[in-house]
C-alpha cells in the first residue's frame, strides 16, 4: 500500500533530541525563502521572523517554549484556542451558573377546553311515574301511539288508560277502574263485585246533568267517560306524567321531592293554569314566571325548583350541576350567546363556551391546566427559549456540549490507545508482523463507516439500550472504527525512528522491547500524535452530531448538540423556531473549527518545515 497517509509522515520525522538543530536549519531555510519572496509577505511577518531568528533567543528557549512561541504567533490557532476555551467553559462550567437542570421542564397555565355539559331543547316527553306504578317502554309506546291518533283512551290488556291533557305537551296518564256503567240511559249497573256507596247515584246524576267529566263523592274522585253507547264511571289512579318540561331542584337534597310524581303533577297543573301557587302534601309553593323560565319558591320564599324546556345534563354522570349553572346556561342558550362566565361552588369565575351542533348544545369548560411550554420564544428567563419538551434550550446546550466534547475526547483517547499499540508494534517489529498488522489495518479501514454505525444504531434502538449505556457503546464503536489512521501515522514514524542512533543506544543497554517501544519510541511520536488527535477530534464531534441528528446517537433525556438539532428535521420546527437548531449548529461549527485551527497551528508549531 503506497497511499498518501503512509507516505507523508515518513518525510517529516520529528525527533525530540535533535529538535534544536532541526529548528535552526528550518529557520535558516525560511529566511532564505523570505528574502526571495519579500514582496509577498506583509511587514509584520518579516519582523517576527527576524526577531525569532536572533541567535541569542534561540539558545535561551526550550523546545516546548519554541513550540509555544510558534503556536501563539499563529493568529488562527490562537483564535481556535480561544474558541475551545470558551466552549469548555460553556459546557463544563456553564451549568453551574444556570438555575435550571437539564431535564427540568417548564409549564404555563393554559386553558384547556373540556366538554363539561350538554344541553338540548326538549322535544321528547319525559315521564314521571307515580309511586308503585309501572310505565315501561311498551306502555310508553302505546301511549305515544294513542297520542298520535288523538285518542284519549288507550288500553293495555285489561286496563284502560286515559290521557288527560294538562297543557300543550304535558299529559297525565290515568288508569281507569270501572265501578259502574250506564247503558242507554237505563240506570246504573254496578260492576260485578262492587258495591256502590250511598248517595253515589245522586252525585253521578248531578254531575252528569251539569255536563262535568268527573265528580267527587265521599272523598273519592270518579271520572265519567263514554265508550260507544255506554257511559262508564270509574275511579282513577295516577300512572304517570308525560311532559316536555324539565324540573330542576334548586338544592341537590330536594331532588327527591322535585322528582316526585305528586309535586310534578301539582306543579304542571299550576303552570298550565298559570296559577301563582299550589300545594303539595300540605306544603305550599309559589310560582313565578319570567320569560320562558319558571321558578318555584317554597313557603319561606326560597327558590325551590325551576322548570324549563331546555335540558342541561352533565357529561360526567357523577357531577351535579347547580341550579344557577343550569339557569345561566339556559339563559345563554335563549340569548344565543356562545360564551358565559359562571362562578363555580368556590366563587371562582369559570368561562364556558357553548357550541351548537344541530339541535345539541355543547358546553365546554375552559379549565386552567398546567401545560408544558414547548417552543417558547427566547425571553429574559430563557435566553434561547424552550425546546420541544419544554426544557431550557441554553441549559440543554451546555449539558449537550459536555456529552459532545466528552464523546470526542474519549473516542480520540480510545483511538490513540489502539492506534499506538498496533502502530507501535507493527512499526517496531516490521517484517511479517508489520505486514500482518497492516493488512488488519487495511481490513478495518475498508469497513464503510456510516453503514456500520447506522446498523449499530438501529440494533441499539431495537434492544432499547439505556441512554447512558448507549453513549458508552457509541464511543466504543466510533473508537474501534476510527483508530486505523492513527495506527498508520505511528507506524510510519516508528519505522523511521527505529533506525536512529538513540534507538541503537537503547538496544545496546538491553532494556525490554516493550519499554523500548513505549518509553523511547512512542514519546517521540507524541507531537505528531497530538496534532492528528486534535485534527480528528473535530471529525468525531461531527460524526457524533450527525448520528444524533439522524436519531441514532444520544437519546433523551440526555442531550448532545446533534440530538438537539434533531428537531429541525421537522420542517415546521425548522421554519418557525430558529432558536431550536441554529445555536446548536453554530456551537458544533465553532467547536470543530476551533479544533481544526488548533490542530493546524500545532502542526505548524511542531514542524515548521512542513508549514502548510
Amino acid at each position, binding site marked *: *500500500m*503506497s*497511499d*498518501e497517509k503512509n507516505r507523508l509522515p515518513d518525510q517529516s520525522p520529528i525527533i525530540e533530541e535533535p529538535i534544536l538543530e532541526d529548528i535552526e536549519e528550518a529557520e535558516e531555510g525560511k529566511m532564505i*525563502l523570505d528574502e*526571495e519572496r519579500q514582496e*509577498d*509577505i*506583509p511587514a509584520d*511577518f518579516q519582523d517576527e521572523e527576524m526577531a525569532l531568528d536572533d541567535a541569542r533567543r534561540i539558545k535561551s528557549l526550550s523546545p516546548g517554549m519554541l513550540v509555544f512561541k510558534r503556536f501563539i504567533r499563529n*493568529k*488562527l490557532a490562537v483564535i481556535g484556542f480561544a474558541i475551545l476555551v470558551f466552549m469548555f467553559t460553556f459546557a463544563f462550567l456553564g451549568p453551574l451558573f444556570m438555575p435550571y437542570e437539564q431535564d427540568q421542564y417548564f409549564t404555563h397555565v393554559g386553558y384547556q377546553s373540556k366538554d363539561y355539559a350538554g344541553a338540548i331543547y326538549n322535544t321528547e316527553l319525559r315521564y314521571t311515574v307515580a309511586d308503585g306504578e309501572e310505565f315501561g317502554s311498551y306502555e310508553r309506546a302505546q301511549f305515544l301511539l294513542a297520542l298520535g291518533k288523538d285518542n284519549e283512551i288507550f288500553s293495555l290488556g285489561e286496563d284502560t288508560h286515559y290521557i288527560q291533557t294538562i297543557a300543550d305537551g304535558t299529559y297525565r296518564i290515568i288508569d281507569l277502574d270501572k265501578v259502574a256503567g250506564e247503558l242507554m240511559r237505563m240506570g246504573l249497573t254496578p260492576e260485578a263485585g262492587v258495591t256502590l256507596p250511598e248517595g253515589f247515584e245522586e252525585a253521578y246524576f248531578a254531575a252528569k246533568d251539569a255536563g262535568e267529566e268527573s265528580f267527587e263523592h265521599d272523598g273519592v274522585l270518579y271520572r265519567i267517560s263514554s265508550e260507544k253507547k255506554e257511559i262508564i264511571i270509574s275511579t282513577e289512579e295516577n300512572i304517570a306524567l308525560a311532559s316536555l318540561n324539565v324540573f330542576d331542584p334548586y338544592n341537590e337534597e330536594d331532588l327527591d321531592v322535585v322528582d316526585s310524581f305528586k309535586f310534578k303533577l301539582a306543579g304542571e297543573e299550576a303552570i298550565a293554569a298559570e296559577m301563582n301557587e299550589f300545594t303539595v302534601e300540605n306544603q305550599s309553593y309559589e310560582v313565578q314566571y319570567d320569560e320562558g323560565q319558571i321558578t318555584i319558591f317554597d313557603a319561606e320564599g326560597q327558590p325551590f325548583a325551576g322548570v324549563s324546556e331546555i335540558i342541561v345534563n352533565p357529561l360526567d354522570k357523577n357531577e351535579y350541576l347547580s341550579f344557577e349553572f343550569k339557569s345561566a346556561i339556559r339563559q345563554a342558550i335563549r340569548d344565543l350567546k356562545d360564551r358565559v362566565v359562571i362562578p363555580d361552588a368556590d366563587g371562582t369565575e369559570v368561562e364556558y363556551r357553548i357550541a351548537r351542533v344541530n339541535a345539541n348544545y355543547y358546553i365546554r369548560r375552559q379549565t386552567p391546566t398546567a401545560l408544558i411550554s414547548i417552543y417558547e420564544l427566547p425571553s429574559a428567563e430563557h435566553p434561547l427559549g424552550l425546546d420541544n419538551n419544554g426544557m431550557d434550550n441554553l441549559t440543554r446546550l451546555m449539558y449537550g456540549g459536555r456529552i459532545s466534547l466528552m464523546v470526542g475526547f474519549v473516542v480520540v483517547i480510545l483511538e490513540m490507545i489502539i492506534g499506538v499499540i498496533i502502530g507501535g508494534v507493527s512499526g517496531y517489529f516490521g517484517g511479517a508482523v508489520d505486514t500482518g498488522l497492516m*493488512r488488519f489495518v*487495511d*481490513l478495518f479501514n*475498508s*469497513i*464503510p463507516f*456510516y*453503514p*456500520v454505525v*447506522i*446498523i*449499530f*444504531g*438501529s*440494533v441499539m*434502538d*431495537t*434492544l432499547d439500550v439505556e441512554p447512558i449505556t448507549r453513549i458508552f457503546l457509541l464511543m466504543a464503536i466510533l473508537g474501534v472504527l476510527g483508530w486505523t489512521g492513527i495506527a498508520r501515522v505511528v507506524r510510519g514514524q516508528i519505522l523511521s525512528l527505529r533506525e536512529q542512533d538513540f534507538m541503537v543506544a537503547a538496544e545496546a543497554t538491553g532494556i525490554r522491547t516493550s519499554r523500548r517501544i513505549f518509553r523511547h519510541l512512542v514519546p517521540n511520536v507524541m507531537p505528531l500524535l497530538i496534532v492528528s488527535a486534535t485534527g480528528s477530534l*473535530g471529525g468525531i464531534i*461531527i460524526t457524533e*452530531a*450527525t448520528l444524533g*441528528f*439522524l436519531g*441514532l446517537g444520544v437519546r433523551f433525556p440526555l442531550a448532545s448538540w*446533534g440530538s438537539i*438539532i434533531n428537531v*429541525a428535521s421537522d*420542517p415546521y420546527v*425548522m*421554519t418557525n423556531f*430558529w432558536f431550536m*437548531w441554529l445555536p446548536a*449548529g453554530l456551537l*458544533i*461549527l465553532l467547536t*470543530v*473549527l476551533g479544533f*481544526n*485551527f488548533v490542530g*493546524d497551528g500545532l502542526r505548524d508549531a511542531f514542524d515548521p518545515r*512542513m*508549514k*502548510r
Partner: protein
Amino acid sequence: MKNFIIRRLFLAIFIAFFGAMIIYTTVRSLPASYVDQIARQRASNPLSTKSYQEWLEELNSVYHLDVGIIPGYFGWLSNAVRGDFGESWHYGIPVTEKFNQVVWYSFIINIITFGVQLVISIPLGILAARKQYSRTDYAITVFALAGISLPTFFLATILKYVFSIRLGWFDLYGLTGRFHTSMTDFQQILDIGYHMILPVITLMMLSIGGLMRYTRTNMLEVLNSDYIRTARAKGLSEKVVINKHAFRNTLIPLVSYMSYLIPSMFGGAQITETLYQIPGIGYISYTAMIRGDIPFAMFYTTFLIVLTQVSLIIADIMYAIVDPRVRVN
C-alpha cells in the same frame, strides 16, 4: 508492476472477504423481527398454502439465518459470488435490481459535485499556496476549514431554511416536483436537475475544503523544493514555473486523492441523500438498513468494500502512470 498488481488484487480479495464477514456478523446481530414480520405477512395472504411457521422456516433457510454465523456467511457468499444477492426485504424486489434503479441518481449528483469541486478548489488551493500567509491565503484557509467543520446536516438545514423556506426557490425534499408525471421528457430532466441543485451545493461545500487544503499543502511542498528554486533561478516566468513545473508535480498526489472519491461516487452520499430524501443509493440503503433489511445492507456494504479496494488499486496504478519514479520500484 504486473507482480505488484497481482499482489494488490489478492490483497483486495482478502480484505473484501474478511470485511464482508465482519459486516455479516454485525448484521446478523440485528433482531430477526423483520423476517418474522414478512413470514406473518405471507402467511396471512389468502393465496398462501403455507402456515406462518413454514414460511418462517423457508425464509430463514433462504437467507441462511437458521445456521450459525460462519456457515451462514459462506452460504451468503456462495450466492453472492454468483451475483445472487437475494431479494430486498424492505423493497420486495431483487437487491441488484433496486440498486440499478437508484444508483444513477447518486452517480449523477456526485459527478456534478466532483466536477464543480475540481474547478473551484484546485485553482484556489494553488492561489493560496502561491500567496502563502497573505490575506488571500488566510481567507481561503478559513473558508476551507469552515467547509470541513460544517456538519452536513447543519449546512443542509441552513440551505433549506434560506432557499426553500425563506426564498421558496426549491422544494424541501425529493428529486421530483409535484407535476413531474405530467411533464414532457425534457421537462422531467430539467425538473430532476433543478431538485439536484441544493444537494450538489451541500456536497460541494463540504468537499471543497478538503481538496483545497490538499492542493495547497502539496503545492507548497513542491514550491519549496529545489527544482522550483532552480526553475526560478533560470529566470523562467512565474507563470511557467507555477503551471509547468510546480502544478504538474502537484498532480501526482491529487490523482491519487481523486481516486479515493470513486467509492463515494457510486456509494452515494448517505447523509446528504437522506437529508434531502433523494432516492439515490445512499438514502435507499439508509432506509433499508434502519429497517433491518439484511440482504440490502449486506449488498450495499460489500459493494462499498469492493469499490474501495478497486479505487485503491486504481490509485496505485494511476500513481505509477503519473509518476515514472514509482514505476521503477
